[in-house]
């Protein structure tokens, strides 16, 4: 993963999460904001399974089932993905992957 500053990583991360959701739902990314809830985006449980799968592929993370159930909106998804990426950085020594 390329080195990036904290701020741009957050922005980039959020944009990437939104892009994954947009592609999976086949809706324009512009129609999604960090404040959108899954309900507003008409994302049902089956869509959620698809999105989680795509997020795992995009970020090379494993999202636990409990984490999936507590996600209610885009902001939750971004925060969850960020936590998992950071947890992964902590457990994997630099240069090990």
């Amino acid at each position, binding site marked *: 993963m390329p080195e990036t500053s904290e701020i741009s990583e957050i922005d980039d991360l959020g944009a990437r999460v939104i892009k994954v959701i947009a592609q999976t739902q*086949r809706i324009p990314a512009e129609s999604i904001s960090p404040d959108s809830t899954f309900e507003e985006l008409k994302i049902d449980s*089956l869509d959620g*399974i*698809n999105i989680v*799968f795509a997020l*795992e592929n995009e970020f090379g993370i494993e999202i636990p089932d409990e984490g999936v159930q507590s996600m209610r909106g885009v902001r939750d998804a971004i925060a969850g993905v960020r936590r998992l990426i950071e947890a992964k950085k902590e457990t994997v020594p630099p240069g090990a992957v």
Partner: protein
Amino acid sequence: MNRVAVTGLGLVCALGNNVGECWQRLAAGESGIRPLRDPGSPPYKFRTGAEAQNFRPLDHFSEKELDLLERFCQLFTVSAREAIAQSGLKFSGSLAEKTAVITGSSVGGQFSEEEGYKRLYRENLPRVAPLTIPRTMANAGASRVSLEFGIRGPAYTISTACSSSNHAIGQAFWMVRSGQVLCAIAGGSEAVFAEGLLRAWEAMRVVSPDVCRPFSAGRKGLTLGEGGGALVLENWEHAKARGAEILGEIIGFGMSSDAHHITQPCVEGPARAMQWALCDAGIAPEQVGYINAHGTGTEANDVIETQAIRTVFGRHADSLLVSSTKSMHGHTLGAAGAIEGIATLLALKHGIIPPTVHFTAPDPACNLDVVPNEPRQAYVEIGISNTFAFGGLNATVVFRRA
């Protein structure tokens, strides 16, 4: 006991994307068998198939919908839409609960299943696509149509190899006849052109290298086909009361098991299915004028089916018109009963018997009038549609001209 009308038909197969297109070609004796679009690598031993080459999923579904719908499910849904539109039925109120959806499928969502295996075993990826389960389930077509039209009565899928959709139509017929439901959407679909399944058929050594020529001397086997077919069955009085056009009638259904061999056919089982069907319809063998044969084009089936027909019909067998439309739309496995049942009903309705094409010369072991190559004009009151499955499971549906 209620009479059972057919008030809607829908069809997608190698011959076309709707009933009109398909019937035009059936009635003209035009084959839909073509070189395989993907001949395999290394090439399959057979070079042809009856693919629904003009079926474009995006003409019928959004990309988002297609994420969830396997090809076999798409084929059934599109045929059911056509059938339901023709029937004019709207499934609101109590009719929704008094309508069944019964489908047949032999292999279900083969593409997604194979895709998953490729990821796991060829690419060594640990995970398969998340919607693999709802895409592959054999009842996907029945469930989709139930959801799309709000049909809330009995809905299920029968998997009996090549008899699947005849069993589905037969069960639906009995449910309408007995009054358990007022209407039923019955039929089936299959999408067979998936690599693993084609290799499995190749290994069975029953697929013709060129074309399917049922009952003909020099036949070399079946040709695989894909498609979907749906019939709207409706309580006769219900259809009359709402002024629906009645396209034909189903009057009998019979089924049997050979208990003989897992793949080798025998005379007794198919004969008994036909006898049961005639008995169920309350008609004498002499009243039947047309048989849409199982007629796969394999050496064994066509000889055995000829003998079974002679067993049931005796001297009348020489007056019967017998054709295998598989010579045009291929063997569509779990969809065979639906597609061929529709062909049977339309033959009665239009007074044209679709021929057995690719016929080169008579085989003395198949000495029936198999309507070789050219369609035949004939007024026929009653026709039957046979399917005999691997596993020895036989099913026959009896149709009457409306």
